[in-house]
């Protein structure tokens, strides 16, 4: 066994076992089910912000993005700009009202706002698909990374990540998960920034020599990466597709939305998103650094593997091995943080729909859903074809932008949204995205080219269509606008302080924790 393998195994084991141990050994005591879910709402903006950033900076941000920048150059720099920009949109349109609505998952929000079980089921289905896409991406990336650094079979990384994530999600409530994820964010930032600094200095001071035939410094690299729904396509429309997906899709990511609920009130939720944004801004400075290094030292390496190949290529020997181990540990911290967050969100989304068997508590159903989701994701990650994981995740963003984004934005800001309108928009948005992706993937290339732009770049075309359908059908069916819209809007938009000045929120705080 080489030192690189030992260092990597050690790093990965420390992260996985340490995280699982932290949550098993020190589970917080929760008085009620709700405390379990929401950390008793004691999470301050900075800690919650770090947890949000931790879930957001998944395998994609840590590995694939740098790999794509190395492969395609400038057009991929937009991805990190867009990924952060999506968060500004979340801050502007969604956070505070969603927190004040008092709903926990997106399905809860849809049911509360529109009072329609059908819309709830549609949203639950879409959230499940997005969550699964995210989980499969993390587990596949874990397999790729572990095989790359240790030579273990690809299923090993996925299983290790899934087991650790389930252990954390099952034993810890949101409180412990929040603490753990905040810690993992700082760990990731420290590792990736530190390694970037060392590698960059090695390059600058001439300790690492580029390979004999360096890649051309401009223009797309000859290696062709697979393209999915516009992602990985360096043309302007491909970039636009990713920017729209990022800007509108971030608000629909189930794990991010659940996080908002851990803040005590709307104002604190807004502040935690600003804190998260500050941290993301710092984190997203790193992929371009690795991208530049990768362009020079590891041209042509597949996107997901590039970052981990870099230290051995630049500094062969013990230093490179140690850096590889550190980066592997940082990557697994990313897989684990995101998988955990998605599992908790999926568990909360799916558990109300599970069969009610006598003597199984709500937490029991939650745990069952978490375990079921993890197992399904694991099986899917083996069955699904392996591409670069950024393609999968961006597909999730695109789906979210075309379905959950219109429901959230119109639901929060427009009192005319009707249940039928929302259902129609969701069906059209999800259906169009699914159909276009299927056509792009299955139809012959010549046919795709003849069908034109929307097939290859679905998000920028489908998202506006979904908005339009929702508005048009809502206007046509005013009868299915749910009753009490003004009260719901007031609850979302009027600040909590007004509890003292004439608005009754008596059921707002004691009511929710008394169960």
């Amino acid at each position, binding site marked *: 066994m080489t030192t690189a393998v030992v260092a990597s195994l050690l790093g990965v084991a420390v992260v996985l076992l340490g995280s699982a141990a932290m949550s098993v050994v020190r589970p917080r005591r929760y008085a009620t089910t709700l405390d379990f879910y929401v950390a008793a709402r004691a999470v301050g903006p900075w800690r919650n912000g770090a947890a949000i950033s931790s879930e957001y900076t998944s395998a994609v941000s840590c590995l694939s993005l740098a790999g794509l920048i190395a492969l395609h150059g400038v057009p991929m720099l937009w991805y990190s700009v867009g990924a952060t*920009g999506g*968060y500004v949109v979340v801050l502007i349109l969604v956070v505070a009202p969603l927190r004040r609505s008092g709903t926990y998952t997106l399905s809860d929000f849809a049911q509360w706002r529109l009072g329609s079980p059908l819309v709830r089921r549609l949203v639950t289905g879409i959230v499940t698909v997005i969550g699964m896409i995210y989980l499969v991406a993390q587990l596949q990336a874990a397999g790729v990374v572990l095989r790359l650094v240790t030579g273990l079979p690809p299923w090993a990384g996925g299983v290790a990540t899934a087991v650790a994530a389930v252990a954390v999600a099952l034993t810890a409530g949101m409180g412990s998960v929040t603490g753990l994820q905040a810690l993992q964010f700082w760990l990731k930032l420290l590792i990736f920034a530190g390694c970037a600094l060392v590698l960059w200095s090695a390059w600058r001071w001439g300790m690492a020599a580029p390979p004999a035939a360096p890649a051309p410094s401009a223009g797309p690299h000859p290696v062709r990466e697979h393209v999915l729904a516009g992602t990985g396509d360096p043309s302007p429309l491909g970039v636009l597709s990713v920017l729209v997906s990022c800007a509108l899709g971030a608000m629909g990511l189930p794990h991010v939305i659940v996080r908002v609920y851990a803040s005590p009130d709307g104002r604190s939720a807004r502040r935690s998103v600003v804190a998260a944004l500050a941290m993301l801004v710092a984190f997203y400075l790193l992929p371009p650094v690795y991208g530049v290094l990768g362009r020079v030292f590891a041209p042509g390496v597949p996107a997901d593997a590039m970052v981990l190949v870099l230290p051995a290529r630049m500094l062969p020997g013990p230093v490179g091995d140690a850096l590889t181990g550190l980066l592997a540990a940082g990557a697994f911290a990313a897989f684990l943080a995101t998988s955990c967050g998605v599992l908790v969100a999926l568990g909360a*989304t799916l558990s109300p729909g599970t069969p009610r068997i006598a003597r199984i508590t709500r937490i029991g159903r939650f745990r069952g859903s978490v375990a079921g989701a993890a197992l399904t994701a694991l099986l899917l990650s083996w069955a699904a074809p392996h591409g670069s994981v950024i393609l999968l995740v961006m597909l999730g963003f695109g789906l979210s932008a075309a379905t959950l984004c219109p429901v959230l934005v119109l639901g929060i800001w427009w009192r005319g949204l009707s249940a039928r309108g929302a259902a129609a928009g969701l069906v059209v948005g999800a259906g169009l995205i699914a159909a276009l992706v299927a056509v792009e993937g299955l139809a012959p290339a010549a046919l795709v080219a003849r069908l034109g732009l929307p097939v290859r770049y679905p998000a920028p075309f489908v998202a506006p269509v979904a908005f339009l359908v929702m508005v048009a059908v809502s206007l046509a069916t005013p009868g299915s606008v749910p009753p009490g819209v003004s009260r719901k809007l007031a609850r979302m938009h009027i600040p909590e302080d007004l509890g003292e000045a004439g608005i009754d929120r008596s059921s707002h705080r004691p009511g929710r924790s008394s169960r």
Partner: protein
Amino acid sequence: MSGRRVTVTRNPVPAAGAGTAGPLRPLGAVADAEPDGWAEPGELHLRSIVAGQLSLAGRTLAAVAGILLGVAVLPSLGEYAGIGAPGVWLVLCLVPPPLWALLAVTHLRRAERIERESVRAARDGG
């Protein structure tokens, strides 16, 4: 749940935490009087705060779109201006992040100000 009666418009949300929270209503409004049983000042107050937040959101969204668009045309601008590839890389990596942070903080402060003013107005009015 507290002893107070609350209006449940449809089935309560069965998932965690959601169903337990009663809808908001102004003091003095009869819960079951009518679906939108808001007293007039409450409705006016709501409309003004939503309008304020929406116009702020519109402005910040325009800035977001502007930054994304600006970033998208930058490389071709860079070619004209003769910055060269390394310059474009540097600008793309270093300029948008502080802009996002600035935009977020500005939006946060303005949104909170709108809320503070609405609270003050409601207290004065009530």
